[in-house]
C-alpha cells in the first residue's frame, strides 16, 4: 500500500537555526498538509497546500514557517529560526482530492527537538 514518507525521523537542532522537514506524499495525491503534536497535547493543523499555493493555514503557521513543493515528489516544511516551543512531532499528510470526505493519509512523523 502506498505510504507518505518523512525524513528524517528525528531532527535535533540548536535554537535559532533553520530546519527543513521533508515529506514524499503518495504519488497520485494532489493535496498536502502539515500537522504537529507537542508532547502531551493534541495533534494540531498547520497548513494545507494545493496547486503550489497555501489553501489554508492556522494561526500557528506564522512568518517563521513556510512550505514548498520543490519538485514533483517532495513537500517540505521550513522553520526559519527555531524556538524551544517548536519542539514537537511533525506529521505530513496527503489526500487524493480536497473534498471534505477525503481521508488524509499520514506519514510516521519527524520528531523535532530544539536545544
Amino acid at each position, binding site marked *: 500500500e502506498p505510504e507518505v514518507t518523512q525524513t528524517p525521523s528525528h531532527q535535533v537542532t540548536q535554537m535559532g537555526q533553520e530546519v527543513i522537514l521533508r515529506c514524499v506524499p503518495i504519488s497520485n495525491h494532489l493535496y498536502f*498538509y502539515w500537522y504537529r503534536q507537542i508532547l502531551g497535547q493534541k495533534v494540531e*493543523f498547520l497548513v*494545507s497546500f494545493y496547486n503550489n499555493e497555501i489553501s489554508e493555514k492556522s494561526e500557528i503557521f506564522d512568518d517563521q514557517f513556510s512550505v514548498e513543493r520543490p519538485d514533483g515528489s517532495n513537500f517540505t516544511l521550513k522553520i526559519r529560526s527555531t524556538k524551544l516551543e517548536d519542539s514537537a512531532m511533525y506529521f505530513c499528510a496527503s489526500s487524493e482530492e480536497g473534498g471534505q*470526505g477525503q481521508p488524509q493519509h499520514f506519514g*510516521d512523523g519527524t520528531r523535532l527537538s530544539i536545544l
Partner: protein
Amino acid sequence: AQSVAQPEDQVNVAEGNPLTVKCTYSVSGNPYLFWYVQYPNRGLQFLLKYITGDNLVKGSYGFEAEFNKSQTSFHLKKPSALVSDSALYFCAVRRGGSYKLIFGSGTRLLVRP
C-alpha cells in the same frame, strides 16, 4: 468553535469482548468524521469515515462507528477485540469549507489476553 472530545484517556477490555471508544464533537454545519489509529512510533492510520447516509459505517480491521446526530457522537466499536488492537485511537472532525482536521486528545486502548 469546532472541537472534538474523547472523554476516556484509556479503555481496557479483554480479548474477545466488544469494545467502544467514545467521541463527541462540536462543529458548525454538517460534520465529516474520521477515526485514526496510531501504533507505537508510527503515524496516524486512517480507519473509517462518516460523510452522510447510513449512521453505521464500517472500516478497516473489523472496526465500525456509529454516528448519532442528536447526541453529536461518533463512537468507535468492534464486536470482538484482539490484543493487536491495542493502540492509540484518535477521533477527528472536519467542517465544510475547511481542509483542517480537528483531532481529539486520543484514547489508549488496551486489550488484555
